[in-house]
């Protein structure tokens, strides 16, 4: 696809078509999301899915999955597009959520509109992304990993320990639900949240896609390929990475605000390092760098985690399958995550739904491995 584009460059008509096609690409995303949004409820009413849980529970589950899709999209910007390993991503999720708690709850006495709080939450999260990233992005990549891990640890700790401001372990409850004219959001009706989630995810996907195709996306790719060469060609690597960091953080902020409004509760234990690792697993398994791959991966993994594992327990238990019936799959889920991560990296590092480009990058190491073995072989000869 890219090759074709390259060959057609320079022709004015083709350029017109191409910019139209880019706009089309965004339309394609919207169309796909509309279709998905319509199909999912239908699927949920089809056996065997209809037997697992009621439609309302499914729809509520889809909304939750949507939160993780958003988180995965955001982490994908940082890890997949810019190549920065962020191991404490849930911190930004927490910041967005608590921002909403301060903006729209009886506890804080404020009641700002939901849409505004979406922006505010994203902005606050982005600010912290900048605060964390600015001093640390010039460090070696591995140091960044440990710093983000540390950050991911202490943000929940801060929320936990600041009892006066955050009510500690109890969290802040009674958050106001979104108010959109004409739509009533209640705890019992999952549909408004479902539709709202679809809208938010679609918008975010379109925006991210466009950024990926712009010169900023190219800059990220260049930095991933060869940071020194990128800098030597004029890229301010620190600013570019920081932008990825901030964008990723603001996406998590969106997710945090939505999640808080949906659950009407924020508490520190929602944002532990397990969440960060789960999102990382989704990004890795889904296909780093590929927007659709990551979204699909998050959706699939979340659904598996919440629904399928339970069903496996029930299935093996009810049918008394030896050995398997004794395994509590739900309890084992992180073991499965771990195994999945290891196996993925060993055998299919580009993820389940990779972008072609990533596949090329990640497979290149096979060539290098052969070279090194040749050196070792020479030595033995």
């Amino acid at each position, binding site marked *: 696809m890219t090759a074709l584009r390259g*060959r057609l460059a320079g022709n004015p008509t083709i350029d017109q078509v191409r910019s139209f096609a*880019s706009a089309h690409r*965004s339309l394609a995303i919207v169309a796909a999301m509309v279709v998905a949004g319509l199909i999912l409820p239908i699927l949920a009413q089809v056996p065997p899915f209809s037997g697992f849980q009621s439609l309302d529970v499914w729809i509520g589950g889809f909304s939750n999955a949507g939160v993780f899709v958003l988180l995965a999209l955001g982490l994908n910007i940082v890890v997949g597009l810019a190549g920065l390993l962020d191991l404490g991503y849930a911190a930004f999720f927490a910041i967005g959520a608590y921002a909403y708690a301060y903006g729209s709850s009886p506890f804080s006495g404020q009641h700002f509109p939901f849409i505004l709080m979406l922006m505010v939450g994203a902005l606050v999260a982005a600010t912290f992304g900048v605060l964390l990233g*600015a*001093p640390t992005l010039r460090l070696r990549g591995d140091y960044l990993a440990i710093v983000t891990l540390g950050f991911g640890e202490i943000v929940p700790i801060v929320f936990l320990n600041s009892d006066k401001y955050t009510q500690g372990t109890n969290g802040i409850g009674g958050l106001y639900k979104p108010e959109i004219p004409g739509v009533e959001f209640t705890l019992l009706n999952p549909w408004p949240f479902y539709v709202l989630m679809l809208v938010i995810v679609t918008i975010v996907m379109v925006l991210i896609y466009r950024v990926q195709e712009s010169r900023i996306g190219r800059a990220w790719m260049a930095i991933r*390929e060869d940071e020194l060469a*990128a*800098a*030597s060609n004029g890229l301010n690597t620190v600013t570019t990475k920081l932008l990825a960091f901030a964008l990723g953080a603001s996406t998590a902020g969106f997710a945090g605000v939505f999640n808080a409004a949906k659950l009407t509760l924020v508490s520190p234990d929602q944002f532990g390092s397990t969440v960060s690792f789960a999102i990382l697993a989704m990004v890795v398994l889904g296909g780093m760098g590929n927007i659709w791959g990551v979204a699909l991966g998050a959706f699939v993994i979340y659904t598996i985690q919440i629904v399928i594992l339970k069903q496996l327990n029930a299935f093996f238990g009810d049918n008394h399958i030896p050995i398997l019936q004794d395994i509590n799959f739900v309890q084992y889920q992180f073991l499965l995550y771990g195994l999945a991560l290891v196996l993925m990296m060993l055998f299919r590092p580009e993820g389940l739904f990779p972008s072609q480009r990533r596949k090329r990058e990640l497979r290149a190491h096979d060539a290098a491995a052969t070279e090194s073995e040749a050196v070792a072989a020479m030595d033995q000869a």
Partner: protein
Amino acid sequence: MSGQPGVPDDTPPVEVLAEKALVEPEDIPREVLAEDAAAVLATAASSAEAGTSGLILNATNVTKRFGGLIAVNDVSFTVPEGAIVSLIGPNGAGKTTFFNIIAGIYDPTSGRIAVRDRTMVARPIRAWLEPVLWVAPAVVVGLISAIVVAAANSETIGFLGAAVTLAALVAMLLSAIARPDWYQRLLLRLGIFRSARPNDMVKAGIGRTFQNIRLFQNMTAEENVLVGMHIKLKATLIDAMFSTPRNQREEAAARARAEELLNLVGLRGVGGELAKNLPYGDQRRLEVARALASDPSLLLLDEPAAGMNPRETSDMMALINKLRTELGLTILLIEHDMKVVMGISDRVTVLDHGERIAEGTPDEVRRDPRVIEAYLGAPAS
């Protein structure tokens, strides 16, 4: 470690980096360093006299040590505007290290390099003070707001105060990264000097290629050139996200220019090929095209004809000449191929063991006994 992205190829030999522990103090006399510092600070600001000397590059007493090993020893060197200058010397003479210093990858141990009479590269002066500068405004604002908060004794004011302090910190951090003019002037006023980073050198009009080709392998030729054009493109994040007409226009124009540059270096129609699939000679040309994309006035070419057969070599020589005559570029090149050096250079500088041993026109240098000795060894007596 060699071979890894992000590390220049000219890493010091194994036996020297014996201790990764405390670095040995360097025994350059303090007075020399102090005097150097004064000169650097005096000439670091861009001023009205910039560019009057006609020298695009002026290196003064540049020394670079890695621990106990001197890679570049007191080298002084000028490049007049519009000239083609070659830097030659036996392997390991320090040429690429010197290049890397010019390009802003290494800080010199002492000495300085001026681009159009403005010192851009030198040993850092009082670098430790810079992080203090980042937090200082936040500390001041924080203290003031603490006083205000204590006086007002209101929680909202408290939050406001915290928010303002945070904003001050973020603003300073972002300035530190973007380095606008006022920030750089402030640094100099405080006696802080930091060498230009590689991307700053690109902005100052210096482009470079690498000894071991460092293209973005998994990107197309066109994309490689587009990355090179990064600093010339002005579209912002918002432009990208909303696919504004400005963004589309700029992208179309950029692709057109990329095509022009590819044609210029003799890579017509190759834009859609992945860089890693191009034949070796084409890859070298592509690197030149990428370096040209930023509209430099000085081009650093590190062994542009390495590994080429005679036909390719003369093509490269023709290209280099074309760059001077048609584009008005100044060229500084490292080369081993004497045909190239003697054929196109106006001036030649010879390095051996990190020191400059000769300088002059190609003919003068060819006959210089010290040069002959360096290349061929001392005559048997």
